[in-house]
C-alpha cells in the first residue's frame, strides 16, 4: 500500500467548497488490507474533528465500499488496483455548507450499473446486501459513475456545525 499527502487545491467554479488533498492510498484488492485502510481513515477523521459516531460511520462506509469493490467489481480476485483519495472540504466564505471530508474510490473492475445498486429490504432477514445500505445511511453524499474505464465512488460526510457552548457563569 502506498500513501501520499501533498497539499493540492481543486474545485469547480460553482462548488461551495475548496478541496484540499488530505490522503491518497494505492492498494491492491486484498481483504487483508482493509484493516490498514480503516486505521488510516480513523486517524484522518480525528484530525478533521469528526465526533466518534461520525468517525465510525465514515470508516464503516469506506470499508464496506472497498469490500464491495473486492467482491463484486473484481469478483474476489486479489492484486487488482484500488485508489482512495481523501480531500478536506473547506467551505467558501458565505457558503451554507459546512466543512467536510470527500472520499473517492477508484477501481478498474467490472463496470457498475448504478441502477442496479440498491441494498436489500431490511425486512428480509438474510445474509448480504447490507454494505450499500450502511453507506447510504452513514454518508451525506454517495455517488457512482464510470469514467475512463474506471468505477468511481464519491462519498462525502459534512462536519456538523459546532454548537455554541454554554456561556461562562457571570455573563
Amino acid at each position: 500500500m502506498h500513501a501520499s499527502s501533498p497539499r493540492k487545491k481543486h474545485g469547480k467554479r460553482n462548488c461551495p467548497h475548496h478541496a484540499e488533498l488530505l490522503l491518497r492510498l494505492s492498494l491492491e484488492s486484498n481483504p487483508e488490507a482493509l484493516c490498514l485502510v480503516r486505521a488510516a481513515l480513523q486517524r484522518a477523521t480525528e484530525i478533521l474533528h469528526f465526533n466518534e459516531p461520525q468517525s465510525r460511520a465514515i470508516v464503516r462506509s469506506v470499508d464496506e465500499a472497498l469490500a464491495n469493490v473486492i467482491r463484486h467489481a473484481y469478483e474476489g480476485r486479489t492484486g487488482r488496483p484500488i485508489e482512495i483519495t481523501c480531500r478536506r472540504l473547506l467551505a467558501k466564505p458565505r457558503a451554507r455548507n459546512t466543512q467536510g471530508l470527500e472520499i473517492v474510490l477508484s477501481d478498474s473492475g467490472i463496470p457498475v450499473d448504478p441502477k442496479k445498486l440498491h441494498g436489500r429490504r431490511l425486512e428480509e432477514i438474510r445474509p448480504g446486501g447490507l454494505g450499500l445500505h450502511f453507506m447510504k445511511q452513514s454518508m451525506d453524499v454517495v455517488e457512482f459513475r464510470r469514467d475512463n474505464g474506471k468505477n468511481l465512488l464519491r462519498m462525502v460526510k459534512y462536519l456538523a456545525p459546532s454548537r455554541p457552548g454554554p456561556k461562562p457563569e457571570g455573563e
Partner: protein
Amino acid sequence: MQITARQFEGWVIFDILGEIDLANSPTMRKVLLTEIKEKHAQKVFLNLTKVRYIDSSGIASLVEGLKASRDNGSRLILYGLNPSVREVMELSRLQKIFEIYDSEEQALAS
C-alpha cells in the same frame, strides 16, 4: 481476529477478539456453522466484548448462524456488544432479531 472456545455446563462460549471483516468473517462463519450444524450444540454463546469492529460480512455470518440455529431448534446468544457493534446491529435492524444481552452473567442465566 481470534476465536477461542470454552465450555460451560455443556454449552459452548466463543470469545472473539479483534475486528471482524471480509478477511476473517469466513473463519467465524465456519466455526459457528460447525458448532450448530455438525455438533448440534443447543446453546451457542458469542462473547463480543472485545470485538472493536464488525462489517456487513460479519453480520451476514451471524445471520447464517442464527438461521442454522433456528433450523436446529437451538439458540445463538450474543453478549457484550460495544457501541460500534451495536450501531451496526441497529443499522441492519437486527437488534431485535438476535438474542442480545449486556453481560455474560445475563446471557448464561437466560
